[in-house]
């Protein structure tokens, strides 16, 4: 996607803006606003709390957010321009798909907005942390978060190159994740084969339940929204056919907060999946 290029363009623009209004600490924003749940994590991990004007309300829910404790005292917004403009932010960071009308409005009134895409790999995650850290003047902290994540990654054992259990992700509405995504890299790093790629899914796509059943898989990774309040989108994750598969397929429930955004929590996602892969491999001879 155009994400890295967008970030670079935005950085260039912002640097230009920063130079126009040069102060003592050139370019260090003091009133940062985040309009996106994944950006919340980036901002809350990197910025000083007194420099954060607002993050989204989603970051307060420990079920959805990895930084609920960090966000506890920070004011929240619901992605609406009329909440943001009175805060007089000097940097707004939004996702490229969300809060579109708010972003358009903010740009129109001349507020600097950076749009950030979804990371497609661990490298993207690292790059994003460094870029944002640079933008908000916390370069050191950015490096330290990345280094910490890399250290934990390095500590994980290398999975075997053969005997990789076949797995697929099943999200609400039958969505799945294919090649060229962060989720795919996590699965691969954990020693699983992502079957969605086999079925021709590129990036994100929808997979019919019939295909999930008919393709022989060892691990079914189901979104944790399965156990939440009911909706048709999540009922599909509880379809009886999936439990009928339980004798030949292991079902793992994965909370979205671990891998929907790019952050240190992905390491925990990898750890969980590695454990599952290990167990599946151990059971294999008995099958």
């Amino acid at each position, binding site marked *: 996607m155009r994400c890295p290029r967008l970030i670079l363009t935005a950085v260039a623009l912002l640097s230009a803006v920063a130079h126009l209004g040069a102060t003592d600490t050139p370019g260090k924003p003091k009133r940062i606003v985040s309009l996106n749940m994944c950006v919340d994590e980036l901002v809350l991990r990197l910025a000083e709390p007194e420099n954060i004007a607002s993050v989204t309300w989603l970051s307060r829910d420990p079920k959805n957010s990895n930084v609920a404790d960090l966000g506890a005292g920070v004011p929240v917004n619901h992605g609406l321009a009329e909440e943001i403009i009175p805060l007089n932010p000097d940097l707004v960071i939004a996702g490229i798909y969300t809060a579109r009308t708010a972003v358009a409005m903010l740009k129109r009134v001349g507020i600097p907005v950076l749009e950030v895409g979804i990371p497609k790999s661990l490298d993207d995650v690292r790059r994003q942390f460094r870029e944002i850290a640079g933008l908000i003047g916390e370069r050191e902290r950015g490096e330290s978060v990345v280094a910490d994540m890399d250290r934990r990654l390095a500590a994980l054992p290398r999975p075997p190159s053969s005997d990789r259990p076949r797995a697929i992700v099943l999200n609400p509405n*039958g969505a799945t994740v294919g090649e060229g995504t962060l989720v795919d890299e996590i699965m691969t790093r954990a020693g699983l084969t992502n079957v969605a790629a086999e079925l021709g899914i590129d990036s994100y796509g929808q997979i*019919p*339940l019939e295909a999930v059943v*008919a393709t022989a898989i060892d691990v079914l990774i189901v979104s944790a929204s399965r156990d939440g*309040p*009911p909706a048709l989108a999540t009922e599909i994750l509880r379809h009886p056919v999936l439990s009928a598969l339980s004798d030949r397929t292991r079902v793992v429930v994965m909370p979205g907060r671990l891998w929907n955004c790019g952050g240190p929590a992905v390491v925990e996602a990898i750890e969980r999946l590695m454990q599952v892969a290990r167990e599946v491999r151990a059971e294999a001879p008995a099958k």
Partner: protein
Amino acid sequence: MMHASTVEALQHARVPPYGLLVASLAILVVILMGASLAIGYAPLDLVQAFRDVLKGEKTLAALVLTELRLPRALLGCFVGLSLGISGAAMQGLMRNPLAEPGIIGVSGAAAFGAVTVFYFGLAGALSFALPLGGIAGAAAATFLLYGLSGRGAGTMTLILAGVAINSFAGALTSLALNLSPNPYAVTEIVFWLLGSLADRSLPYVWLVLPLMIIGWGLLLVSGPALDGLTLGEETAKSLGFDLGRLRLQLIAGTALAVGSAVAVTGTIAFVGLVVPHLLRPLVAHRPGRLLLVSGLGGAALTLAADIGVRLLPIRPELKLGVVTAIIGAPFLFGLIYRLREEEA
């Protein structure tokens, strides 16, 4: 006076024997169910799957067949039956060919009832609470309709009542979805308004089948009374029919059949309009006989539409109501045009 040739032509117009008609439609339904089982999103060796099922082996093919394709085919049949038979029943009761659970608001109200139960986790999603919610909604709408439009409802009153109920129920459904705790709910209005048979499981089928069967039974035994109503309420009474009991039977039967159908598949419009109208000449316009015939025709139409939805290369899968509306709405236009000419 009639021209001699026209008289001859009329005398040659044949109405098939009732038994033959019912049997042919039943066979058509069975064939379409077979076709429905054979069509899907993963390559399936149907014969092998059947063999596995009969042997009791839980192979992947058997699972796809029994857990995914079979409920879809069964629901297509039962829901279509419910819609067809209740369309015929409503038209017989209101003596109006435009009466149909979708148009007159019964389905929309049933959707609201079901949505209230489902999204707010009232007694768990997979319990009788779900179809009962649909049934309660459908019953409320039918009572309201009867009160608003009275007996032998004029077309305009009936349609206006239906518009009112549909608007109200639609708004309430949307409100309920917005208030629901699950963020996905908001976009699911499309399912409830247009209907779909996708990914429904066998437990849903067993949940609604007994209620539907009672509904069908209540409607079928109303046949003779609907025949009597052809001549108006007074004459029907003089032929020995209890009109108060008939109304209750029809309201209860429609609520049970349509309410539970909608609770599981959303509202599928026009089936109850198109099928009775097409098949009425084949039963010599007798409302009583039309009930079963319409039910079977409705099952056939729903199954055919569902097969079409899976064969069309449109992804994500089209909602079933899109296909039935594409067939049914022009049909409705034609009906209105013809009725308007008669009224003129």
